């Protein structure tokens, strides 16, 4: 089976600082990969490169064999909208919107009816077990619930790959375990692939494969 995502010889420099050096990786469909490393090792930069949020200094990224590196910002945004889900340690939910509206947030620019948008968002909230909290604002939800809403948001466009940056970093261990279980469930049910950026051995241990970054290089 061909890889879902392939990164080849990625380099990223910020001025004189080389954040990522000759990093290559592959993620297969339905695979859960952990990217480990200490703070400052370049793992978050690597994740941003894979998401198209940063342009690499050199190297290329293939998604389903399409080279996304030459795409401009808008094309990358559309590519992300169709293929990538992002989950952050800090959740990054919109505080003024309800859980349901937060999940529907990536769909706002799409020309779809409000009812279809609501239907799709509600289905994702059900998938993460939070349909009953649809009308609650983030401030009324626990940390675990907020991360579930963020995962539902990442899933709303049915992406092939979810990039999660320290998804359990702000959660207690029991809630963190629940989130990791949810990832495995989603992999099983929907065939979604995951790249989990973490510095937590316990989190990494749940992955199919562990990659370790050090000083910008994948070991």
């Amino acid at each position: 089976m061909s890889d879902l995502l392939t990164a080849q010889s990625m380099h990223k420099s910020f001025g004189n600082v080389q954040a990522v050096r000759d990093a290559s990786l592959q993620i297969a469909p339905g695979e859960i990969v952990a990217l480990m490393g200490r703070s400052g090792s370049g793992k978050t930069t690597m994740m941003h490169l894979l998401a198209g949020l940063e342009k690499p200094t050199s190297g290329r990224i293939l998604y389903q064999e399409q080279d996304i590196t030459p795409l401009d910002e808008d094309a990358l945004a559309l590519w992300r909208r169709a293929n990538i889900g992002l989950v952050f340690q800090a959740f990054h939910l919109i505080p003024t919107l309800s859980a349901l509206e937060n999940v529907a947030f990536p769909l706002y620019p799409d020309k779809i009816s409000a009812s279809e948008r609501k239907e799709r968002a509600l289905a994702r909230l059900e998938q993460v077990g939070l349909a009953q909290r649809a009308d609650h604002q983030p401030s009324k939800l626990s940390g675990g619930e907020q991360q579930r809403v963020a995962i539902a948001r990442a899933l709303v466009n049915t992406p092939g790959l979810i990039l999660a940056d320290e998804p359990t970093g702000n959660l207690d261990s029991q809630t963190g375990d629940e989130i990791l279980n949810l990832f495995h469930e989603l992999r099983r049910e929907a065939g979604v692939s995951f790249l989990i950026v973490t510095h937590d051995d316990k989190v990494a241990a749940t992955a199919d494969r562990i990659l370790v970054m050090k000083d910008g290089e994948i070991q």
Partner: protein
Amino acid sequence: MNLSYLFTELACRWERSIAGILSVAVGVALFISLQAYAGGYRLAARAPLAEVGADITAQRQGDVPETFEGIVYPHSVAPLHRDEIEAIAALDGVEGVSEALFFWSFEDDSFVAGLGFDPEADFGPGRLKVGLVEGRFLEPGDRDVILADASYATQNELALGNSVAIAGRNFEIIGLIDTTRAGQVANANLYLPLADAQAMSAVAPSVLSVHDMRPDDANLLFIKAEQTQAEAVVAGVEKILGEDALVSSAESFGEQLGSLFALIDRFGILVGLAAFLFAAAILLRSIAAGIWERRREIGMMRAVGWRRSDIIRYILAETIAVSLAGGVVGLALAGAITLVMSRATVTVPIPWELSPTPHFFPGGATDFSVVVPLAAQITPALAWAAVGLALAAAALVGLWLPNRIAGIKPAEVLRSE
């Protein structure tokens, strides 16, 4: 565009929304109020002549006779000759000319102000018809008949059918006129056919001693002009009548209204625009601060797949909503200001050449003026201007938005915790 998200954001960030709305409102209100104020003054300046349906009056300064006996031209105005009247009537922008002959008649121990005019003209003294309170109005071809000002008639115990003498000629009173209904310009005690006034003037010693009076001359013209060409007509009349021309128009009345009006009339649009630009700058600052506060949210928009144009369109929609709300509030504010302004009155000084009373008579030297309400109003054009200004404020912000949004790097704003 998700309107629910848009209005939720505006409501949740109500302090910024109110600041933006108020800044646009103040700019719009200032701009609209200044234009309404200037418009009210412009209408007031037009009022003295509008009362007689004319846009311009033309006279010529002449010499003072040695004695004030018999018929004398008021304030020593001089005759306007037939060729000059025809040249004025032929000027571009002139829609009509109504001739009149304004005179004083000094008889032994009495004095009367008389005005000869063409009763067929529907502007100028012909408008006196609306003030007829008794009897009938002058008709074309009438001779030796006269209309009397009702208050003059009362003071002098005159009634319909009575006879009054002017320069040795008797005239029968056929109608009484309430001149207060027809305005202050061209007021006299007695009104007679133009031909009779011309005939008496052409043989009056005091007139002939200082003027080249010809039988078909007049000494006061009421001119109707196209509004857009009024200034050009004034210039044309002044050229035809020479350096002694005495021309009154809405502009010359406006000049009498004082420096405040002149300033607002000339610089009202500039001051209004400056106020509006200041308001737009405050709106820009408010939107900029809002974007800075929401940079993580905007970064998240990019991260979940919003294109830059999607974000700009969304922020612009928010800005337009704030601006339009500001425009509506500004319009309401301007309406309130205009309502207060419209309770004021404007005193428009009238040139003394148009006063019926000799300056050496009691009360004759006092200022002659018309008091009219300051008709400041918000016209549909001004209301549309408010909407236009509000949208212009949003457009100004829109010009700046792309750079600002481009400056937000999602990888940076989503990383820092």
